[in-house]
């Protein structure tokens, strides 16, 4: 059992508060740290990994302080977001070096390379690797000492769908084995597919915590706004407002469009095309106007 405890942690840089009084407990299994870009996810992960001192509060791993404690790295594997990684080495040389720094040998390195399926390219220079290959070699370097806690900062960035699937499988396996795996992402779908447990961070604050179903429900139940243009806006508006899935419509004459607020997302998306067809109205534009991640998150914070 490995538990990472973040206790009333804040971190500020000059006048900017990057992480604001966050308390969370990360236990075994896969946890997703979700939040928009700039929310403080990397700052938080850097503090979890002992690369940044909290301004206040403590980060402990099974009761042991993480900051300024080299011995803690016997239990932690880190996959940083940044690309740089001794590009002049081959993949194998890099992972072997990481194994040696843990006091292990080439055998452990080879096992880790096999785990991430990078043996086929292990003798190529890292500088020739694609982003996904780099990510997997980084992963191998983090797994080489069989850590019980794995920290990954935006591990899926820049990966193609196949590589993404492979890495997800791998992380899922790690979680099933009872390791504590924490990864950050700003993409809801990634977190939803992989994480058993989600921690949401918005603007440096801990916005939500729980299993993904609860958070997903919070996200889909919120009012959705759409911008709709059609061949007959008023007729469409009248037909839509008759249905309980719609809670409000504004006819925007300047824009020549309707602003529709839907409360039942599923029902509204089925209703709109049907109503249009039944009334012989042509839909010209249907676009969600508040689908940006920030608005989803700010809704979550309010919830």
């Amino acid at each position, binding site marked *: 059992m490995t538990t990472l405890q973040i206790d009333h942690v804040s971190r500020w840089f000059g006048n900017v508060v990057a992480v604001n009084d966050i308390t969370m407990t990360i236990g075994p299994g896969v946890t997703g740290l979700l939040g928009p870009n700039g929310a403080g996810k990397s700052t938080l992960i*850097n503090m979890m990994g002992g*690369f940044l001192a909290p301004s206040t509060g403590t980060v402990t791993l099974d009761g042991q302080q993480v900051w300024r404690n*080299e011995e803690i790295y*016997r239990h932690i594997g880190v996959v*940083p977001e940044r690309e740089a990684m*001794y590009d*002049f080495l081959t993949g194998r040389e890099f992972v072997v070096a990481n194994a040696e*720094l*843990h006091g292990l040998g080439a055998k452990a390195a080879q096992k880790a390379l096999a785990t991430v399926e990078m043996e086929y390219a292990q003798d190529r220079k890292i500088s020739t690797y694609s982003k996904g290959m780099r990510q997997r070699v980084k992963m191998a370097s*983090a797994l080489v000492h069989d850590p019980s806690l794995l920290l990954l900062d935006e591990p899926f960035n820049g990966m193609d769908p196949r590589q993404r699937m492979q890495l997800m499988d791998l992380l899922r396996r790690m979680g099933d084995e009872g390791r504590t795996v924490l990864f950050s992402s700003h993409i809801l779908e990634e977190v939803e597919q992989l994480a058993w447990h989600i921690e949401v961070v918005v603007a440096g604050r801990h916005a939500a915590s729980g299993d993904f179903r609860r958070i997903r429900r919070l996200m889909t139940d919120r009012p959705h706004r759409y911008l709709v243009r059609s061949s007959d806006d008023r007729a469409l508006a009248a037909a839509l407002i008759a249905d309980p899935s719609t809670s409000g419509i504004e006819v925007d004459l300047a824009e020549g469009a309707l602003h529709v607020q839907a409360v039942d997302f599923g029902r509204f998306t089925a209703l709109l095309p049907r109503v249009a067809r039944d009334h012989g109205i042509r839909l010209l534009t249907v676009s969600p106007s508040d689908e940006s991640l920030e608005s989803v998150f700010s809704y979550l914070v309010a919830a």
Partner: protein
Amino acid sequence: MYDPTVARLTYRALLGRRRALILGALPLLLIVISVIVRALVGADDQTASDLLGGLALATMVPIIGVIAGTGAIGPEIDDGSVVYLLSKPIKRPTIIFTKLIVAIAVTMVFSALPTFIAGLILNGNGQQIAVAYTVAALVSSIAYAALFLLLGTVSRHAVVFGLVYALVWEALFGSLVAGARTLSVQQWSLAVAHKVAGGDLVTSDVGLPTATVLLVVVTVLATWYAGQKLRSLTLAGEE
């Protein structure tokens, strides 16, 4: 205290193609100039001493020291790859000490060795001049490597600061302001060289005891402090 893996990574980073070219260019220049001077002037002790003191010790050694000292750790901190060293159960002072050894070795090879060769070319080690300046280069390699390794650990602009120190402080101020000479790695190493050569060709403004103490103190303090700085090195995220 010494980690062979850290050393290997540092050597390979330092002697990568581009950096090795820069490291090799200055020594080559020194040797070429020495050949030309010897051909034009012939073997002359004063000329040899002037050239080794002015070009090799005052300019080349500190520049090589800057490249090797800051290069042993600065780029890793800059691009973030140092995280692969820091995320290991290795004492931070061990990382610094290992990198110091590598930086010293590289500085010595690329500065002391060519100094000795140039000395041989210039006057065939007459009056022990080649040996004296080589010893000075060896001694100052240690102090420069330690100083610039510290600089590389604490500053993102280590190379610039290092070059300013090497060229402005050591070379320019050192020749104009007497006080600056007391606080100059070059003068300390010259004190050691003076002891080796004897005579009046190699002189220093600093006495040997003072020079030795300052060399040791600067090297030890810089290394210790770099280790402390690395212990609390902060890796800021990209956001």
